[in-house]
């Protein structure tokens, strides 16, 4: 019976929530509130490879509620708007065996958006609250609208997350149309242990020609390393956490584990998107660099760690580009890479430890193919094939095996219309 609960719940949600929520809106004077959210349920397979029994991180559960975003959007008059969104996937996984997700709800972990936006005239706005830092195009794209089931390597590994802050945004015409987002944040990922300190972030998008957007983005902040344990017998002292960038593939495999960092944390990115008819091509590069002051084994300064990622994506809307041409069907392909190293000379022992002076370089190259089908406006079916390769076969999922690691993902997504 347990085996049927998951698909039954999915069907229930798919059938009941959208229809119940469609058109649902609560009004009181100038205040309008409507529900928002979506559900993503995944099936996964890793044909031809497996990891050691005690490996953590791999998204091994073949049936996973990947996201269950629930919340509301609100508008007050013409100038004020906002939204609050939580991810209840852990709650759902707690209810639906066989997952063992830990706490069903934790505010820091589960809060996604919680912000208020004030329109400043017709073209500008001021946003305050908890939301995404404006850096990576891929990460700024809603998880419900991504081209693939999993975000790109660079978005997973280098891009900042959500945090509390104030952001000014808008658009202006300076020869060509320019959009901008500039913000100051309390950190760069409130819900993560790896959160940095106060961070400034900005993103500028230039509409160079019709259908072509060119963007540049950056964030600068700091990250503070955890203090060392001074008394090993004191249970209140915990091991310092490694807080750096990381390399994690779509399967969840960590090919570059976090190292200890302290000091400046900088990200610099650029991206482009070109759309013409049913075709869209996108490219993005993102560089991250973090200092490692006093993070050596003898509290010495270490060379900074840096990560560099790039991705190129092509999407073809095979059907549904025009009204009455049938339900939309997209084919997509992505080629990407993410690599990590330190900025120091490649001298001495190159290690994988979290305080390695000479970091053993790691990189992954990934190719993804995907199909998305929208049988209903609020329903999306996704199928992905992800082919991952790792430069260092020693640290591949199956140590010593060089080659391709295949991940298959099928997703049902249901949105509140």
């Amino acid at each position: 019976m347990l085996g049927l609960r998951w698909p039954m719940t999915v069907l229930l949600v798919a059938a009941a929530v959208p229809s119940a929520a469609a058109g649902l809106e609560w009004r009181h004077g100038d205040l309008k509130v409507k529900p928002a959210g979506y559900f993503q349920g995944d099936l996964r397979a890793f044909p031809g490879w497996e990891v050691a029994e005690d490996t953590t991180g791999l998204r091994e559960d073949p049936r996973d509620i990947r996201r269950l975003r629930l919340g509301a959007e609100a508008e007050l008059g013409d100038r004020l708007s906002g939204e609050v969104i939580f991810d209840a996937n852990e709650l759902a996984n707690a209810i639906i065996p066989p997952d063992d997700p830990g706490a069903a709800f934790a505010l820091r972990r589960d809060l996604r958006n919680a912000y208020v936006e004030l329109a400043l005239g017709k073209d500008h706005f001021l946003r305050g609250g908890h939301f995404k830092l404006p850096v990576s195009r891929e990460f700024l794209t809603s998880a419900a609208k991504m081209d693939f089931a999993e975000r790109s390597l660079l978005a997973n590994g280098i891009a900042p997350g959500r945090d509390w802050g104030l952001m000014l945004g808008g658009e202006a015409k300076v020869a060509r149309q320019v959009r901008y987002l500039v913000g100051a944040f309390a950190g760069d990922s409130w819900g993560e242990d790896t959160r940095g300190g106060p961070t400034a972030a900005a993103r500028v998008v230039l509409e160079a020609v019709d259908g072509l957007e060119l963007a540049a983005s950056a964030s600068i902040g700091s990250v503070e390393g955890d203090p060392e344990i001074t008394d090993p017998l004191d249970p209140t002292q915990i091991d310092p956490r490694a807080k750096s960038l990381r390399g994690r593939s779509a399967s969840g495999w960590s090919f570059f584990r976090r190292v200890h960092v302290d000091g400046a944390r900088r990200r610099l990115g650029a991206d482009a998107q070109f759309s013409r008819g049913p075709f869209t091509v996108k490219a993005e590069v993102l560089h991250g660099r973090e200092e490692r002051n006093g993070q050596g084994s003898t509290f010495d300064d270490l060379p900074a760690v840096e990560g560099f990622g790039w991705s190129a994506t092509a999407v073809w809307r095979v059907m549904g580009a025009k009204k009455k041409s049938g339900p939309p069907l997209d084919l997509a392909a992505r080629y990407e890479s993410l690599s990590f190293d330190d900025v120091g000379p490649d001298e001495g022992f190159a290690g994988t430890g979290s305080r390695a002076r000479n970091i053993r370089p790691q990189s992954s190259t990934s190719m993804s193919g995907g199909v998305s089908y929208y049988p209903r406006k609020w329903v999306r079916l996704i199928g992905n094939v992800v082919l991952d390769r790792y430069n260092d076969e020693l640290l591949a999922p199956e140590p010593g095996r060089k080659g391709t690691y295949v991940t298959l993902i099928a997703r049902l997504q249901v949105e509140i219309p």
Partner: protein
Amino acid sequence: MRKYPVVAAAVTVLAAFGAPAAHAADAIFSQSVLHEVRIVIDPGDWQALRDNFRENQYYAANISIDNEVVQQVGIRSRGDGSRNANKPGLKVDFNKYVSAQEFHGYKSVVLDNIVQDASMIRERLAYAVYEAMGIPSPQIAHCRLTVNDQFWGVYTIIESVSKPFLKARLGEESGNLFDYEYTFNWDFSYRGDDPAQYTPLPFDPETNENKLDPKDLIEFVRVVSQSSDSALLGEVSRFLDVDKFLNYVATENAIAEHDGWVGDSGMNNFFLYQFGNSTMFTVIPWDKDTAFTATQWPVGYHLDANVLTRRLTADPNKMKVYKDAVARGAGFVNGRFLVPLLDSAYNQIRNAALSDTKKPYDNEAFEGAINGLRGLITAREADILAQAK
């Protein structure tokens, strides 16, 4: 031996017939060679490991054992009383940084710094006796260790007591393995039903850490303290093969070990394993570099200081089982069995030991300890047999 020639001969013959087939050593633990272990590590990390030798902080390193290279292993300082900054004892985890990495089927090994034994070979001889007495014990061999091409002395390379050991020696690995961590002078008396009184200290779980249920362990300790005299054997037998356990303690006293189950300051230096899907436990010896304390050693040493051994040996039948085991031990704790092993080990390590400048004793002490140990094990048999009558 001159005093008890007939008994000694009989015991030796019985012991030889009763001894289990020797466990075939894996190549990395072969005692026929002095192994060569080389570690390559960031010099800063090695310094940090030595500076912080009381911590279990791991550092990445490459290691080669007899020219077989394993990359990106984790090494850390280890030991209790033997923790040392000058000559660190090391634990080598092959899969600390590389998932599922193994070496000859082992996920980890220990590089023991042997700083508490001037002869450097006590532990090797002790495990030989345990094995001869039918008690599975870790494999051990001597090695030369170099760190970043600098000779760091003579070490022993010891098999970790972990799942591969359990599978190979006890036949299964699904149960609860506890490393007994000495934290206080404990005599196995009942400490109440609060699991925190038992684990993670002193019983540090090495397997099933995330789903450990120590209720059987607690119940085991409880029945040892609280069962009536008449019910004791029946109750304890639910948790322990009593005769095998007495054989273990008898071996400990036969080799004059002063820091074991019936040690000077309470229990120490063993692993306790609860078989999977069973309430039965067994004891595995560990860290026997303080064995062969003295020629004259009471074979009933400290039996009365431990609740379990005191109550079991209060039964005349079990005391006889114990004494028989002690007498059987004399078949191995003697010059005939151990001196060839001693001489073999001594000849193997002598040159390296004499050039080991990290050891905390001089060469004279090393040679003296070897000679003293040779004399001790030659004379120990008579002392055992005199007491085991």
